[in-house]
């Protein structure tokens, strides 16, 4: 029984939140990695693209709610997602046409594009604040829990609760669907194949008649879609605040770099690695240890490696360690 309690406590406070957060990071990192693979620069504006898309989704959600439209037990925001994706895709395509294309034509060095994207980031930052303001927004509706604490305790008789929020379940399901769809697209469609070809060797791809403008446009649209989905899921599960999304850039990049920039599989693995390390390193293991160890060995302290204040430092540390010892990441990116 104690072992079960320990397992449930671990599941409830480490695994479930870690997996949900990891899925959100993975979707964000996929967008970063795609841009890097095809356009060959690190897009610093990705966090704010997420914020912009989420802001649009929130406003469409409000509109739908005011019309009395809901999605039953699921959050209404899921219905608003396509609109958010369409508007955000439009914005990034305009940005590409107006800004990035100029530098691409000049064959600018990647570092210049990175700085340009930082500029775009600040503009988007301001745009989001103009559109929706700086306050915290909660836009989750529908059923709050798939499995709540009381139900679980009553059903199992365990002392520890296990809670699964609807938003966590939605996050994981949507993340799996998105990743499956993306991989199918990259492996099996003509456009997907041309994207991979363009990524592997640009000159060869151009020689074989691939239209570079089209590849670039499709990449931006997919990256925007992933950003909006990641941002919306994060906002549903936690809450939306423009400044927090700006800060999300760090764990998202850490995830992409850990997996190997340019490798979609790496981005997913990186997302979970970063999320779980943040949670595991800052978790106080006292409760789990008390259940598992015999009474005589029960710990007095909290058994916490790092205070929760240092959560962000964990992504920083991972980023630096990977760049120092394994610059290409786990899945051998670029």
């Amino acid at each position, binding site marked *: 029984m104690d072992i079960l309690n320990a397992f449930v*406590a671990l599941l*409830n*406070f*480490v695994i479930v*939140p870690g997996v949900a*957060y990891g899925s959100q990071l993975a979707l964000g990192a996929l967008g970063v990695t795609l841009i890097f693979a095809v356009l060959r620069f690190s897009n610093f504006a990705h966090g704010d693209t997420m914020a912009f898309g989420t802001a649009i989704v929130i406003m469409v959600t409000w509109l739908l709610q005011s019309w009395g439209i809901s999605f039953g037990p699921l959050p209404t925001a899921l219905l608003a997602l396509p609109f958010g994706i369409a508007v955000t895709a439009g914005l990034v395509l305009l940005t590409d046409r107006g800004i990035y294309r100029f530098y691409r034509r000049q064959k600018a060095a990647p570092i210049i594009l990175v700085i340009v994207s930082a500029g775009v980031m600040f503009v988007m930052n301001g745009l989001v604040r103009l559109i929706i303001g700086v306050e*915290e927004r*909660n836009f989750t509706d529908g059923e*709050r*829990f798939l499995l*709540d*604490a009381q139900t*679980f*305790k009553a059903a199992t008789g365990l002392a520890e*609760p*296990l*809670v699964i*929020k609807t938003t966590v379940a939605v996050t994981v399901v949507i993340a799996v669907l998105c990743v499956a769809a993306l991989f199918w697209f990259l492996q099996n469609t003509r456009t997907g194949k041309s994207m991979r070809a363009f990524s592997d060797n640009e000159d060869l791809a151009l020689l074989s008649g691939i239209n570079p403008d089209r590849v670039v446009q499709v990449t931006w649209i997919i990256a925007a879609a992933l950003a909006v989905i990641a941002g919306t899921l*994060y*906002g549903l*599960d*936690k*809450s*939306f*605040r423009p*400044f*927090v999304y700006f800060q999300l850039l760090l764990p998202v990049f850490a995830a992409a770099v850990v997996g190997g920039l340019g490798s979609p599989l790496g981005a997913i693995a990186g997302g979970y690695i970063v999320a779980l390390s*943040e*949670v595991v390193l*800052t*978790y*106080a*293991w*006292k*409760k*789990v240890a008390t259940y598992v160890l015999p009474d005589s060995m029960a710990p007095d302290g*909290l058994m*916490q490696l790092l*205070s*929760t*204040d240092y*959560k962000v430092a964990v992504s920083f540390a991972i980023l630096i360690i990977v760049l120092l010892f394994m610059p290409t990441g786990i899945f051998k990116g670029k």
Partner: protein
Amino acid sequence: MKKLLMASAATLALTGAASAEDVNLGILIGFTGPIESLTSHMAAAAEMAMAEVNASGKSAYNFVSVRGDSTCVDSAAATAAAERMVTADSVKGIIGGDCSGVTGAVLQNVARPNGIVMVSPSATSPALSTAEDDGLFFRTAPSDAREGEVMGEILSEKGVKSIALTYSNSDYGKGLAEAIAAGFTAKGGSVTINIPHEDGKADYSAEVASLASAGGDLLVVAGYLDQGGKGIIQASLDSGAFSQFGLPGGMVGDSLPAAIGPALDGSYGQVAQSDSAGAAMLTEMGKASATPFDATSPYSMESYDAAALIMLAMAAAGSTDSKVYSAKIMDIANGPADGSGTKILPGELGKALELIAAGTAIDYDGASGVALIGPGESAGRYKQFEIKDGKYETVTFR
């Protein structure tokens, strides 16, 4: 004839206005930031006191309110706002700041160098009791050291044996958490964990995981209701970690039960608020005011009292010079030591001015039962409350 009448009426009005010298008073509180839901009531209360004095016609000064945004958390912004009040608007006294951190910064960087009196209605950090203030700093709110004792009493009376404690990582939160831990341990309880949380984050599941791991009968959240405090409670309920919460003053406001819902019922705590006769009077006055406000909102009564103290002290000293009238504030608030001062309640500021002019001693009680102790801070009365059906129900005063 008609013209003449109008002309003389106009002259009279002019002389009437000219006889009362305009005096600017600053209201430096966080109109944006973590306690923004409280500050509109606080400012309205302070401004009502000014309007009351002006309307009484008994004051030599016509008080004008100058609002400034302390942001509650950003010391640099608060200092700049205070600096502007003092230099550009030449205020003669400041009602504020609100949160302890910015109040300390403004006191050291603006009030002391310029010699301006500050009366804070809501800064409660124990550290301010010992801060260097050149006799310029007062507060109508009690120090958190007292709130910690009260919370310790309430918890032990409820039969709570152990608490988990988390605080907003700010001067206010840290000071209050230490006071609560000390107050509760003194009553024989144990604190399983005492950790900070950062305000303005989207996700508090990691903090809650640590708190849950340490365990405890209930979770005391010494934070801000519009910020991390709300996030911590939401995350605790979501993960099933805690179902009951201890709520100190910073967590009191209607937006909290509205955001959390019925799950908050049964949580309890205390907030600095008085059951004095003046409290009910100010509540009624607030409803009838030109800009209506809720005087039961935390620190609104203290704001009214802060403004009243400054204005009465100016009248007693016959001067708007901070160095002169600051010496009168304790006299006005406490009256003569033998208790012979006439008690002054809200709405009686005109009467107070008359008594002062006649040389009679007054003992300003105001809305919050003002009695200043030690270095000029309120002794404090606390309302013990419990949340029922999304409302803060008063249990008792202590």
